[in-house]
């Protein structure tokens, strides 16, 4: 029963988020609006951590499983991608190094500055 209850809570937040996303003038993921409401509900103690804990631990542990179908969907557009595979890999590898360096240097600078103050 507890799984049903926790699923009901998560689905209710998700569908509320999707409902609000429908009336927004630009496209925005409903899931993120749901995330925001769930965070608020937990902070304001409308919900307790135990009300969602069991289900969230499960989904977070096996989250990657739920990405399998989205990954497999690449076969329906593979012929399109085939010709550009080398530049795509190039962009992925180079950008990953650059983004990691920028983020690490920014935070490192901020932490050092905070410690000096």
């Amino acid at each position, binding site marked *: 029963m507890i799984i049903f209850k926790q699923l009901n809570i998560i689905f209710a937040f998700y569908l509320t988020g999707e409902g609000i996303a429908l009336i927004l003038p630009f496209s925005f993921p409903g899931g*993120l609006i749901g995330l925001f409401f769930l965070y608020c509900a937990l902070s304001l103690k409308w919900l307790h951590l135990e009300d969602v804990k069991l289900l969230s631990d499960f989904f977070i542990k096996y989250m990657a499983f739920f990405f399998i179908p989205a990954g497999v969907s690449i076969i329906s557009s593979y012929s399109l991608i085939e010709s550009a595979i080398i530049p795509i890999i190039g*962009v992925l590898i180079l950008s990953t190094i650059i983004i990691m360096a920028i983020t690490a240097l920014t935070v490192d600078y901020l932490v050092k500055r905070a410690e000096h103050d």
Partner: protein
Amino acid sequence: MIELLSNPIFGLFLTLICGSFFWWLKSVSKFTWISPLLFSIGLIIILLQGLNIPYEAYKQGADIIQNFLGPITVILAVPLYEHRADLFRHKTAILVGTTVGSLSALLVVFFLGHLFGLSELFIHSLMPKSVTTPIGISASEILNGIIGLSVVSIIITGLFGAFIAPTVFKVLKIKNPIAQGVALGTTAHVIGTGKAYEIDRVCGAMSGLSIGLAGVISIFWIVLYRIIMFPI
């Protein structure tokens, strides 16, 4: 035969079988570098192609699993709430780091993509590459990208980011675990966080927090980008 394969339970079953096999293999073997996600995707593609099973048949069941991505995004609120003490303690570093990191992620991919001569469709599919998958799929949808390509690039980025991180930190002489954690979570999402926990606990917690925050902030940048590039 096609009637049986078009039964939604078929796609669901094939995904579950492949997924449980590789997650099991990772848990019992010493190959910690195994990405059960990447291996499952690969095996399912090989099976579908090898056995001539139409993708549309598989999709019937696969969609059931994919529909859970929205609720999973909602669930990302829970780790953010659980680690709120760490978040508030280092709020400036984390907020500025994830904001700068996620903006630079979009800009770097945009410019590198043009430099490498990629079409707009590919650039838009690669832009969410550092965003955690459930949110990255939404980002790809907003930009009308190829969702499958976005997901695969998110996984490749995660694996490569976790692999290269120790070298990047060494070359740049970054020793602070907060900086390492935020960089890992912002760049390499969940896979990077696994690496961050190997470095130390503070680094792991910082990385975990950065995943959700960088995801949320990225969506704001992407919505802004879309409004600027494609005004209605």
